[in-house]
């Protein structure tokens, strides 16, 4: 536990601190960059990109060993993985553009084929005599164990550069995600912006390979934006709070993993992100599950209150249990079901408003206002006092009928 707390506050040694910072920056880049993917509704393309990195890792290892170097040099492996990820991305785009297949089918095809090639290459490497192949499989699930100072610097620096690029491209990417037709009419090159968006995702994937692993990087790209969406109705806020959520997940995950080196980093980061997501899903205001259940119940009570009062105004008996409960709770009826004075007054008001509305529909020229009738909105919120007084003169005339 003490180890974890030390790692959390960056007191577990220089290297561990650097790894933790790198993970936070990577998490920020993934959350913010993933937001645009989420808003553009192309989240799963990132999964194809991530899986397409694996053959690149294998090929780069083989090439580096063949050239007599250390096969596990991180910059080399990253370059190789970026190359095949890029090919995978182009593959998805080409399938969508040139055939009648939809994007989901293209993603499935590219993801499985590239991942299959990668696994074959890793098996070949296992049987190679030269090179110390141990450790390549850590690219699947991520690890902080044995990370070099330069590797941590590479991750932190790369993450920071991706964040800067996201900041620079935030406006065109938002515009294209919201309304591509309008963006194109403004002269924005939609295809190029989309490509830049995917390029950023690719960069996050490649930078995160060592730390999070290629299988789970997609979660770090998607979960923080989805979580942030619970808390905000503005694209800017979603993007930057998704960044913060990703950074928190990366920081916590790297710290935990540093204090217990046998644990894979990727799954821990993702579990922290998922915990933040679950909390938001349940407790976010307005969009959260709890808030919508409460809002639904409040709405239901309003409907029952109105139905009950209408019944009272017509002197009809009320049988519905919830209606009785709502009316009793507000003191509109006595426990034996007889209307109180307050209840009679409220019922009379509701009946009168119904007449006013029907006059309004006949009289008022503005259908946008009369269209706001939903039985629940008080008439005073829609029309001015003068207008209501005018309706009343007509209500009195037909009210006698």
């Amino acid at each position, binding site marked *: 536990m003490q180890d974890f707390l030390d790692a959390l506050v960056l007191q577990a040694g220089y290297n561990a601190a650097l790894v933790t910072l790198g993970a936070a920056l990577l998490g920020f880049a993934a959350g913010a960059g993933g937001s645009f993917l989420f*808003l553009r*509704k192309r989240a799963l393309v990132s999964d194809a990109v991530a899986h397409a990195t694996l053959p690149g890792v294998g090929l780069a290892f083989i090439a580096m060993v063949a050239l007599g170097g250390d096969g596990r040099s991180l910059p080399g492996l990253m370059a190789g993985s970026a190359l095949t990820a890029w090919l995978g991305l182009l593959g998805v785009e080409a399938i969508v553009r040139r055939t009648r297949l939809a994007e989901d089918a293209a993603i499935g095809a590219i993801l499985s084929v590239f991942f299959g090639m990668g696994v074959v290459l890793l098996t070949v490497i296992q049987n190679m005599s030269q090179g110390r192949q141990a450790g390549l499989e850590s690219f699947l699930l991520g690890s902080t164990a044995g990370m070099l100072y330069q590797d941590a610097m590479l991750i932190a620096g790369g993450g920071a550069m991706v964040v800067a690029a996201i900041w*620079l*491209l935030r*406006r*065109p990417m*938002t*515009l294209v*995600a*919201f*309304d591509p*037709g*309008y963006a*194109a*009419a*403004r*002269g*924005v090159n939609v295809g190029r912006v989309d490509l830049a968006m995917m390029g950023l995702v690719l960069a996050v994937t490649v930078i995160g390979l060592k730390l999070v692993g290629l299988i789970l990087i997609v979660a770090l790209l998607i979960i923080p934006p989805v979580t942030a*969406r619970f808390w*905000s*109705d*503005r*694209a*800017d*806020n*979603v993007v930057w709070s998704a960044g913060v959520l990703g950074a928190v997940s990366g920081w916590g995950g790297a710290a935990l993993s540093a204090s217990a080196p046998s644990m894979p980093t990727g799954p821990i980061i993702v579990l922290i992100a998922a915990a933040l997501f679950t909390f938001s899903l349940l407790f976010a205001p307005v969009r959260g599950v709890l808030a919508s259940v409460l809002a639904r119940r409040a709405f239901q009570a309003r409907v029952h209150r109105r139905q009950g009062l209408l019944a009272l105004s017509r002197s009809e008996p009320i049988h519905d249990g919830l209606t009785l409960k709502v009316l009793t709770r507000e003191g509109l009826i006595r426990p034996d079901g007889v209307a109180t004075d307050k209840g009679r007054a409220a019922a009379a008001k509701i009946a009168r408003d119904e007449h006013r509305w029907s006059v309004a529909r006949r009289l008022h*020229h*503005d*259908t*946008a*206002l009369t*269209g706001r009738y939903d039985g629940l909105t008080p008439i005073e919120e829609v029309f001015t006092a003068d207008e209501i007084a005018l309706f009343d003169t007509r209500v009195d005339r037909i009210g006698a009928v």
Partner: protein
Amino acid sequence: MVDLSLVAQPRGLDPASPLAVRGLTVTYGEKPALYSLDATFPVGAMSAIVGPNGAGKSTFLKAALGLIPRVSGEVTVFGRDVNRARDRIAYVPQRASVDWDFPTTAIDVVLMGLYGQLGLWRRISGAQRALARACLDRVGMADFADRQIGQLSGGQQQRVFLARALAQNADLLLLDEPFAGVDAATESAIIDVLKSLKAEGRSVIAVHHDLSTVTAYFDHILLVNLRRIAEGPVARTFTAASLSETYGGRLGALQIEGLDLKEA
């Protein structure tokens, strides 16, 4: 010295026109959507593009803007290539083309209209925010500035999109069915704004589907059904004869009579 203005325009497209096309042909696969269409819209006027469903009205706007590829044809905006005149065009797409759950508020949508001035680096200034608010006010939506767009009614959404176009301060407005599925109050609010734009000397071109309001709203009309049927001032062109040619049998004699048109 040769007076260049005397040299015939090689394109033959009116350089004063806010939007002129010649021989515009668009196909979806091998099925023609528009065939060899010519049109020259007048400056400082309200023009309608009218025709039956599937006649290529929206396609015309999209192809003119270069949003979909054209098989052939020339397009000029104020005498220049459309790509060099984008700053002068504001486009209001069909309402259905947007995801209404997108996290953006009415004022954010209008601020997107300032995209050109904002560029990549600059922060949004107080003056720009005030301008966006003024545009919302002009369409009667100032009270809804901070609402998420999905919480607005269809008519309100359309007005926000018009406000975004206003923020661009463009000389040419292209609107795709601005009155489709909106309430009467929105329709009159939109038409008031469009008429005030015309009074400022700007040109408005709208795809329009309601034949009963053509005479009241528009000065100029282009009747389309895959090809150009007729084009000209509403008073002269919007006739029973041209309408029945545009709509074929789809428009009954009674409906045409109901429009109370002058016989050509």
